[in-house]
């Protein structure tokens, strides 16, 4: 067991190293000079050179790569080219929006998906099942940014219940903050809820067919009791796996929604940083997201093995 964990740890380190190199290389070859971008069209060449020197862009890529990696190991992400503030501070500030947004969306999606999935599974084959599952098919097919646009049209422009975008800051009060995140969270949650409901249903249906469920029914439990006592627990593994996947997706995948609603979150930070060629910010945020996924995967792998050593050679 210890040896297994050790090899997995080694491969984790290798993955992270490869990832950092890939990210750095990918971002390094993007054409466009941050200094030229910042100084605009009337800038003279010597001015651009001076700014490049000020930003530390005149050193070799290899030097910058090692500077970046060694900084990150000690928790120092460097300083943004455009904003001239420490990147770790910027990320922390943006996380205060992205993290709550992802959590609310996830909570919403779970709250919708569980009852819907259970309902459909327990009435498998019925008209209810068909209708509910039809809606989830639709939910999976709707592009979330389009759904967001429609919600802005209805709830922000026509009804004026919500503002169409922006984030007033948590200083303005919890309610104001949550209100600003409502429409974005719903747009993010809808497709996720549909997916989760479908997974929930099929996982439940699968367990309903298994022997222990027949035994449970034979023991005199009715369908509802059987589902509550036995099937749900067994269906949780695929459902939790999907929830875990969705969380990392929501954190990174909210870029478009953050742009539609103009939320100053992590996604918009990267999007802006790319167009401003604030490359060091892009590198750090992408690395952070990749790091999060790789480490979570690692933890999940280890957890599975601890629970069931037979799983070791799969995957």
């Amino acid at each position: 067991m210890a040896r297994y964990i050790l090899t997995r740890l080694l491969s984790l380190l290798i993955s992270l190293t490869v990832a950092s190199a890939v990210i750095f290389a990918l971002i390094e070859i993007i054409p466009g000079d941050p200094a030229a971008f910042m100084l605009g069209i009337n800038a003279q060449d010597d001015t651009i050179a001076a700014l490049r020197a000020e930003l530390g862009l005149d050193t070799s890529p290899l030097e910058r790569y090692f500077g970046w990696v060694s900084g990150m190991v000690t928790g120092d992400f460097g300083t943004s080219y455009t904003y001239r503030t420490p990147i770790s501070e910027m990320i922390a500030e943006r996380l205060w929006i992205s993290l709550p947004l992802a959590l609310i969306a996830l909570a919403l999606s779970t709250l919708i998906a569980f009852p819907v999935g259970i309902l459909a599974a327990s009435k498998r084959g019925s008209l209810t099942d068909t209708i509910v599952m039809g809606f989830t098919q639709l939910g999976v097919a709707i592009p979330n940014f389009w759904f967001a646009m429609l919600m802005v049209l209805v709830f922000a422009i026509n009804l004026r219940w919500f503002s169409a975008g922006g984030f007033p800051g948590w200083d303005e009060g919890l309610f104001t903050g949550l209100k600003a995140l409502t429409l974005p969270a719903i747009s993010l949650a809808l497709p996720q809820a549909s997916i989760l409901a479908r997974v929930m249903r099929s996982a439940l249906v699968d367990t309903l067919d298994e022997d222990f469920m027949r035994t449970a029914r034979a023991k005199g439990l009715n369908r509802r009791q059987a589902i509550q006592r036995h099937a749900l627990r067994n269906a949780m593994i695929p459902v939790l796996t999907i929830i875990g996947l969705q969380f990392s997706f929501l954190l990174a995948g909210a870029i478009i929604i953050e742009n539609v609603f103009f939320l100053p979150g992590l996604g918009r930070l990267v999007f802006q940083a790319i167009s401003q060629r604030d490359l060091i910010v892009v590198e750090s945020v992408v690395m952070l997201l990749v790091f999060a996924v790789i480490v979570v995967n690692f933890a999940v792998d280890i957890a599975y093995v601890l629970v069931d050593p037979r799983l070791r050679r799969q995957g």
Partner: protein
Amino acid sequence: MKFKALTSAAALVVLAGTAQADTGLIVGLQLEPPHLDPTSAAAGAIDQVLYSNVFEGLTRFGPDGSVNPGLAASWDISEDGLRYTFNLREGVAFHDGTAMDAEDVVFSLDRARAEDSTNAQKALFAEIEGVEAVDPTTVRVTLSTANGSFLFNMAWGDAVIVASESIENIKTNPVGTGAFKFSNWVQGDQIELVRNEDYWGTPANLETATFKFISDPTAAFAAMMAEDVDVFYSYPAPENLPQFEADARFEVLVGSSEGETILAINNLMEPFTDVRVRKAVAHAIDRQAIIDGAMFGLGTPIGTHFAPHNPDYVDLTSNSQYDPELAKSLLTEAGYPDGFTTTLKLPPPSYARRGGEIIASQLRAVGIQTEISNLEWAQWLEQVFRGKDFGLTIVSHTEPFDIGIYARPEYYFQYDNADFQSLIKDLTAETDPAKRSELIAMAQTIISNDYVNGYLFQLAVPTVVKAGIQGIWSDAPTQAIDLTAVSWSN
């Protein structure tokens, strides 16, 4: 009694609430400044927020684009135009309490023209040979060659006076001499300014000024409609303006800007080296259709690279009337009876993206095929502006009085005409207003006759204002939102 007391308390609260609101102003802006130092970046958003409000220069722009005294109350110019003696205002202090004197002017100008300067408009300072403090309120600037627009140059946001004491943190905590002090910046959302109670001049009417950054046009529309912002400066979606005009709560000001929007042509790329081909492009374009289609009617057609509201403007639009038949015959004459294919690279603003699709369709009608690529600004700067890898592009040149770029053969559209270059040299040295006007008219005519670029329209600046606000500049002679004279009428 109790009830009455309660209601009057409520009334008081309401009154206090409105009074509070009336002395503050929330200005919507599309772009957020990357940082707050107007002297080391090109981002127009920095000037929009800070110029004249927080930072001031020796001279300053008036609402009509005239150059007025700023921190310099007056000046003397030597006979040969080489020596400027500025008499600074007395008793001016920076927001941190330190005095603004001649040493600060020397520091600011020397910093801007230094070897390692990161000033985006370093050319403004190119003729300065020396800056010296004669006494605390007198500064003498010596030029290497006479420059008729030196006072104009000193009014730019890139030439504002900063202090050596506060320069280190200028990017996050700007300290100037203006009627407003920087208060707070919530990155990604807003910047707050508060009134400078110790201002040397007429103090501002507004107690606070908040700039809110809303880049998305839909969000801008909703924010304005919900009255979350009081003014939206340079409103990004002209298609929505009729809705504001129809609403009694709002007023729409359409002002002129310095933005000549052109279809820039790579003069060194085949087949555009042939003036007949450039002329054909110019005649293939229907300006009015572009103004209607891309800007929903907002904008003034131009026939040369000059702002129509300027008294020296010459209307040369008839030089390039929409005439597709003429365009076709010019192409045949130039040896392209079946047209040709070129690239059309478009930066992000909607005038370029929408205008580009319309121009592509108009050019196709005379046989010129275009491959459109939509670029980000960084890509545009790299490929088009620095790399000169383009056939056609659309861009608005927003710098005031920038016809001089046609005298720089290395400039991205690569127009090289010795006559024009010597004309601009004469113009720069000329200080007599009448003669200057004459030279300016000649310059406009030369580039129009050479069909250097396709001249489309002067960008208009629509500002949506809540009714009852006075003193907003409708024109944009510079990229600044001068709030010093803004007030609510009650």
